[in-house]
């Protein structure tokens, strides 16, 4: 059980600038009652993990549309482990093919992945269910 508001870092790793989804989600989570930090663009996994720890977030949500998800998610997990911050839940969204989603979830690199068309309320509910148990 988390005291106070749920804290989420919306992270935008990689070199691309497709931040529409990240911003819509950030705003929806904020409207859904969470404290939201948006990393801004062009972040490395190192920068994202550093921000997540500094901001003491409960959840990292990664938005990836550049096809680099198979390298970014494992890297973020690895860095969290190295920092003893594995309690931070990693979720994500973007252009993610079905079989990659399966591999990332089964490999434990992400707890949940949301594809285009997912209602923002579903994501809010998922986070709340997961954190406030």
């Amino acid at each position, binding site marked *: 059980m988390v005291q106070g508001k749920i804290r989420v870092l919306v992270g935008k790793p990689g070199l*691309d*600038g497709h931040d*529409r989804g990240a*911003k*819509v989600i950030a705003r929806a989570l904020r409207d859904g009652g969470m404290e*939201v930090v948006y990393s801004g*663009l062009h972040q490395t996994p190192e920068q994202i993990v550093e921000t997540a720890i500094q901001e003491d977030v409960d959840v990292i949500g990664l938005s990836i549309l*550049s096809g680099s998800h198979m390298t970014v998610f494992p890297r973020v997990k690895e860095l969290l482990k190295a920092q003893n911050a594995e309690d931070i839940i990693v979720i994500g969204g973007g252009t993610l*093919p079905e079989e990659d989603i399966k591999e990332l979830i089964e490999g434990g690199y992400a707890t949940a992945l949301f594809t*285009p068309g997912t209602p923002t309320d579903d994501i809010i509910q998922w986070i709340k269910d997961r954190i406030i148990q």
Partner: protein
Amino acid sequence: MYRGRLWTMRQFAGFATAEESNQRYKFLLSQGQTGLSVAFDMPTIMGYDSDHPRAYGEVGRVGVAIDSLQDMETLFKDIPLDKVSTSMTTNAPAAVIWAMYIVAAEKQGVPAYKLTGTIQNDILKEYIAQKSWIFPPEPSLRLITDIFAYARDYVPKWNTISISGYHIRETGATALQELAFTLADGFAYVEAGIKAGLNVDDFAPRLSFFFNAHNDFFEEIAKYRAARRIWARHMKEKYGAQKEESLLMRFHTQTAGCSLTAQQPENNIIRTAYQAMAAVLGGTQSLHTNSMDEVLALPTEKAVQIALRTQQILAYETGVVNTIDPLAGSYFVEALTNQMEEGAEEYFQKIEEHGGVLAAINQNFFQKEIADAAYRYQKEIETKTRIIVGVNEFQVQENIEIDLLKIDPEIERSQVQRVKELRASRDNLLVNNTLAALKESALGTDNLMPKIIDAVKAYATVGEIIGTLKEVFGEYREQSVF
């Protein structure tokens, strides 16, 4: 107009290595496509070489990896550059990529004055929407006006910029915002050219535009019609253009990627067909139709072929090509066109009140307007005030069975290897000298194109040339709002 000449059917393509993209281009040309359109990978777009740490995992993913002239020569191997026109989606490093194209053509024996094509080269919409910037606005505008001047003297048939509303729309803008912000950017470039000492009629005829074709059929047509009217009027009355060609708005259109759905992806063929028809009825000069699977991954050959066939059916079977501006005089389309025009003028006023386009970017004016519109759009879908077939109505339980194009991770390793070998085999003294000369020019006010071309000829890489310019120009940082 289409009776004399059809629009150019130009499908955006590029992935993996130069060699594989070269094969895809030859396939597209063999299928009747009439122009090429090159997609670059993110490291190339951001000015990093494939072996830079920031490129890790992104080489060849969303487009082709180009590190040096060597890759550019491979990209266009056996494609006659005096016969094919090429559009290149490159912005922040446009001057470098264009220089590579010019030199690759020269090596084929094609002189620069024969080259036709377009570089996107629109940095303002990067700050506003697509966010692939490198340098701060001022030096970026200098590079752009250097390109205008160089093209006027040496590459006169080249479209020096493609002032783009497409990405503004994809980021969530409304049709009106797309229209207004794009034209405002266009006028900012005209003003920058004039300020750099160019005669408006010497560069305005080579300016081109790029719009989105979204779902609202008549609104889209009205947008294109209003764009032509506004451009011609401002160019004549405000900027004093004398030449007829300076008043003409020529534009490329791409159907809306953001309108495609991951659910029931075959439906995207239908969406794209309607959007393509709006673009054609709106008088586009060139068109890209999206493939049904692009919301899931890079398109497969089959999906790309259907997308191209969509255009060919439109051109050869439907008869829509037989009349210019066929909806002129329709009370509805005319009224919508007037509304669009008035709405755009109101936005120009607001931008003026912020102190112009650059000042409005610094104050996050555009970014905030677009983020608000994107959020509104999402909420409309979630509350079902906007119906998206297969997403919030008419859903089915489905296993999506579409073959997806996979990029082999081996490609990154081989591209990294290639750039390393290049660095070991070229004349590094010459590379260093050309880069030093470029740096010196960047510190002054000379046109930078000749120095960039010298560095390209010496096989300096994209990362090295951009890195040299960064030392002088610095890098842009944004304050994001959501």
